[in-house]
């Protein structure tokens, strides 16, 4: 039953249960996809590092930072949008949108997120740039690491780690700026007057950025990230993946041998087995082995292979965004085309449009005041001495303006109701509640009727009216009673 062990005594890779980290030395590369990745890197990091400094005038008494998460005041500001804790469902909507966009990207072209947009990829690219600038390209780094540590090399390595730590520090620094007024906080940080929590968070993010982008790199994608596992289950055979077109590439052989083989009338593939695709790969995989968990589909091997193909005057895109189905079709002598419009992509696009439209509509339709009501549950109602019925409610009024306002409360849906806000100062017989600027106010409202309603539960509407400009907000609840119809 057991096949005799065919283990090469020199190969100890299968002997241990723990794998020693094999350092990867990605080589620099030029081409279309590298250029796209640089642009994405500049745009995304630019947005991340500089957004906290954008100002946005919201009038007196309100913060003028365009994007601000104000935890003590429990507000989230995004340009013209101000989100209250009661509206946290916008965050849920945003997360649903993000997930759907991720699924759509995955259905169209596999791990686009991993290869171009993931912070791990973007920061690793930036750290690799620093590494190449201080220690040289792949060959030089491999040569240096294999040799002795000379003072000159030590200086270059020290410079690299210093630059890495500075980048990581600024990454953490930008993070905390989203939670406080950025110019003030920068000043306080520089003069060592910022709160301890700011330094702590900068420290944590400096450490994680330095460790993840400088040292962990592809280990994060291989061992720590859940997305590759989920992605594999969500994708289908029509999604465009970075694919080695083996129908064109095999049998691989050097250019000289290929010329000879073709002269003899034997088949020869376009792949010259130069290993450039492996050398540039940030995760160290060989794309020619087929779909691979380690492949983040960044397309750098496409650029590397195209460079070689151009030099050999062979057609480019031996490695390209393609599918295994297309390879099979070509091997069978059929023509191929990318199938981007499929039920799956149409479904995701439709869901994105629906969720986005619902969110845009609810954002534009929301009012600048609102009211919530909680009915007293114990007791639901009480009988008054004249046989009337009284219900008590807790009413919370939200004033989303930056100026104080006063609201009048009334109740619709009952016969001869007496509405009383306890501990209020009624003016002209109206129930008036002042609410401070950008605040909520909770009041107890007692509603009494002289005659018990016929039904045990009568729908009522609380109407809250701004006494200055007449803007109203309403909420419905019920008025409970014994329901014996007297």
């Amino acid at each position: 039953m057991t096949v005799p062990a065919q283990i090469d005594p020199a190969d100890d890779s299968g002997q241990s249960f723990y794998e020693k980290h094999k350092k990867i030395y990605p080589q620099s590369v030029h081409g279309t996809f590298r250029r796209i990745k640089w642009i994405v890197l500049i745009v995304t990091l630019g947005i991340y590092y500089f957004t906290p400094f954008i100002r946005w005038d919201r009038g007196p008494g309100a913060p003028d930072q365009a994007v601000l998460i104000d935890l003590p005041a429990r507000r989230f500001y995004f340009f013209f949008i101000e989100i209250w804790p009661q509206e946290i469902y916008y965050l849920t909507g945003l997360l649903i949108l993000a997930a759907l966009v991720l699924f759509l990207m995955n259905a169209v072209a596999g791990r686009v997120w991993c290869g171009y947009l993931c912070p791990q990829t973007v920061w690793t690219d930036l750290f690799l740039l620093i590494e190449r600038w201080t220690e040289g390209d792949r060959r030089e780094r491999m040569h240096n690491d294999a040799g002795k540590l000379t003072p000159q090399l030590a200086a270059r390595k020290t410079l690299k780690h210093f630059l890495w730590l500075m980048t990581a520090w600024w990454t953490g620094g930008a993070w905390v700026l989203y939670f406080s007024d950025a110019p003030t906080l920068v000043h306080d940080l520089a003069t060592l007057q910022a709160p301890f929590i700011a330094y702590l968070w900068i420290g944590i993010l400096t450490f994680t950025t330095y460790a993840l982008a400088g040292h962990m790199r592809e280990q994060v994608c291989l061992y720590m990230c859940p997305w590759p596992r989920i992605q594999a289950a969500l994708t289908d055979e029509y999604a465009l993946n970075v694919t080695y077109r083996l129908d064109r590439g095999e049998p691989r052989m050097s250019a000289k041998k290929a010329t000879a083989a073709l002269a003899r009338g034997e088949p020869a593939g376009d792949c010259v087995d130069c290993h450039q695709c492996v050398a540039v790969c940030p995760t160290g995989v060989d794309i020619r082995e087929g779909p691979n968990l380690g492949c983040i589909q960044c397309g750098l091997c496409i650029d590397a292979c195209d460079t070689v193909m151009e030099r050999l005057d062979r057609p480019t895109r031996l490695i390209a965004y393609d599918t295994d189905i297309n390879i099979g079709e070509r091997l069978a002598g059929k023509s191929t085309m990318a199938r981007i419009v499929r039920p799956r992509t149409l479904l995701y696009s439709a869901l994105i449009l629906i969720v986005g439209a619902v969110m845009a509509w609810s954002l534009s339709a929301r009012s600048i005041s609102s009211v919530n009501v909680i009915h007293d549950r114990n007791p639901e109602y009480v009988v008054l001495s004249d046989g009337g019925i009284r219900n008590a409610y807790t009413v919370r009024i939200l004033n989303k303006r930056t100026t104080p306002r006063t609201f009048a409360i009334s109740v619709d849906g009952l016969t001869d109701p007496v509405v009383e806000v306890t501990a209020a100062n009624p003016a002209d017989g109206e129930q008036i509640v002042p609410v401070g600027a950008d605040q909520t106010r909770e009041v107890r409202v007692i509603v009494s009727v002289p005659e018990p309603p016929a039904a045990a539960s009568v729908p009522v509407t609380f109407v809250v009216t701004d006494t200055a400009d007449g803007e109203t907000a309403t909420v419905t609840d019920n008025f409970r009673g014994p329901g014996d119809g007297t």
Partner: protein
Amino acid sequence: MADSEHNEPRLDPVTGYKTTGHDWDGIEELNHPLPRWWLWIFYACIAWSVVYWFIFPAWPLVWSATGGLIGWNSRTAVDQEVAALETNRGPMIDRLTSTEIAAIKDDPELLDFTRAYGSIAFKENCAPCHGAGGGGSKGYPNLIDDDWLWGGSIDNIGHTIAYGVRNDNADSRYSEMPAFGRDGLLSGAEIREVVYYVRSLAELPVPSSADLTAGAEIYARDCASCHGEAGTGDQELGAPNLTDAIWLYGSDTADMIATVTNARNSSMPAWGERLDPTTVKALTFYVHNLGGGD
């Protein structure tokens, strides 16, 4: 075959991976090695757990446990949090102490604080009898309605809370209804007649055979001194209004006969003896606001 055997690793021809050499009844395991740094993190966690033993309370001794090097424990943490709370709300408590109860509603911040503070004190001390929402139950007055045995003004409510009802405190609210039946003051038939008469005062159904004239005579002689000629009660004496729709002990004929026969005379503690004056003030404000008082 044994349960588990250790063989030499071999190459699996299907996957191209080597096996671990572990063999359970013919089931083998492919070796996908973990990264070694993962193993080091595991060792680091073990090392940290040893450090943890010394920093925090860990080892049980006979009567206590090791204290830990930094002296942290959950009991002192609670004490610190309580102390921090008292420091934190101290200024508001002081403001409540020095503010007249009638002036609280003019200070929105103090109003919100008093309401919250009173609500907590109510749930801790009053809710067992009067209900979490102040709705009461049979024998325990409802505090949301408009009927007050001892007066529903803010001062009256404050006095009732501070000194209680029918207890040993010298300033307690006090009155006692006689147990007319048990003590032989009225016969069973007389009790039934007076109960029918009282029901007629409250416009509750009465049997057509009832002798209301006899009931009225008994009422005028034995009840009117406290409950009033017209049965409207007297808040000075804590005598309930008998003409309204609210019946603390029930409005069934049987309940009312039981009340007249044995009397009720329930009591309430003097909360001023147990709680500080500021808490009593907050409770007074809170209870007055439950239904708006009188």
